[in-house]
């Protein structure tokens, strides 16, 4: 793959990667740094990606995920992985309503396990296929459906709890 094409694809994956990193690291700024570092890593060694082994999307998300794991590992003991949610800013009612609804979803997501949050973001937000999810999370393809279903049920329960 040409470097220029790869860069273009990576730019398009930025938001999804950021959403995944935010769910793992608990705040948006750390997540943006993690995506930035992952871009740098990939661009330093673009040959590490082999197109024969699958699409760029799950591969890059795996790089981001592994980098987030590395960051979590380096965190000092006691430093929590708490979701820092921003308050919805002022704006038209509809915008505020959407922000509140998204915040309710974020709160419910924050109650799930790390793995459950990741699988939901990969499928429902980033629209990855089950095979791509298996590649990104490095799990057996046969377990994706059951894990995802359990995660969705847990999310549904949390959303009911958060009204």
């Amino acid at each position, binding site marked *: 793959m040409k470097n220029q094409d790869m*860069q273009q694809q*990576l*730019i*398009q994956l*930025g*938001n*999804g990667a*950021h*959403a995944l990193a*935010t*769910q793992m690291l608990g705040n*948006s700024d750390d*997540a*943006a740094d993690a*995506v*930035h570092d992952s*871009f*740098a*890593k990939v*661009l*330093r060694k673009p040959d590490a990606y082999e197109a024969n082994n699958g699409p760029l999307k799950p591969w890059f998300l*795996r*790089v981001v995920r*592994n*980098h987030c*794991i*590395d960051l979590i*590992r380096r965190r000092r003991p006691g430093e929590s992985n708490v979701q820092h949610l921003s308050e919805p800013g002022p704006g038209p009612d509809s915008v505020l309503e*959407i922000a509140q*609804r*998204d915040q309710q*979803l*974020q709160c419910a997501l924050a109650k799930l396990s790390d793995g459950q949050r990741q699988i*939901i*973001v990969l*499928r*429902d*937000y980033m*629209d990855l*296929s*089950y095979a791509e999810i298996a590649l990104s999370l490095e799990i057996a393809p046969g377990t994706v*459906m*059951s894990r*995802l*279903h*359990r995660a*969705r049920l847990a*999310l*549904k329960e949390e*959303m009911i709890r958060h009204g």
Partner: protein
Amino acid sequence: MVNEKRPVDQHLGELLSGFVDGELTQQERQRVTLHCDECDECRENLANLRALRERIGKAQLSEVGEDKWRETMNDSRVQTPRTIGWLLFIAGLLVVAGIVLVQLFFNDEIPLGAKLLMVAIYGGLATLLYSVLRQRLIERKTDKYKDVEI
């Protein structure tokens, strides 16, 4: 009397997620469709899963725009020369420090106190480096993510 469960009594569970995601075989899809025609609970669950998926899909889980990622990409490209620059600078600094240290020790005009002071500074740096390396090695041994590829 044989206690056989009718299909409607066997709820579909994860197959509903597979159905919503379009990841089932034709046979499985047919099974879900037929079951949901008869089972109110599974039909409701299916509708809930669809609504949930739609809601997450429309949510704004990342507030960063594409322009920001384009900028970030440009920053990332300058990072490699920056790393090389740092490496060259540190290597040069180490060489200079080594030369100064050797000259210091073989120069009789410099008093012993100054020599001891330099030994303390270099010794302190070496001890700090050793402690950091030691901690990294211990973390590596006990790290549950050590097999993770980065």
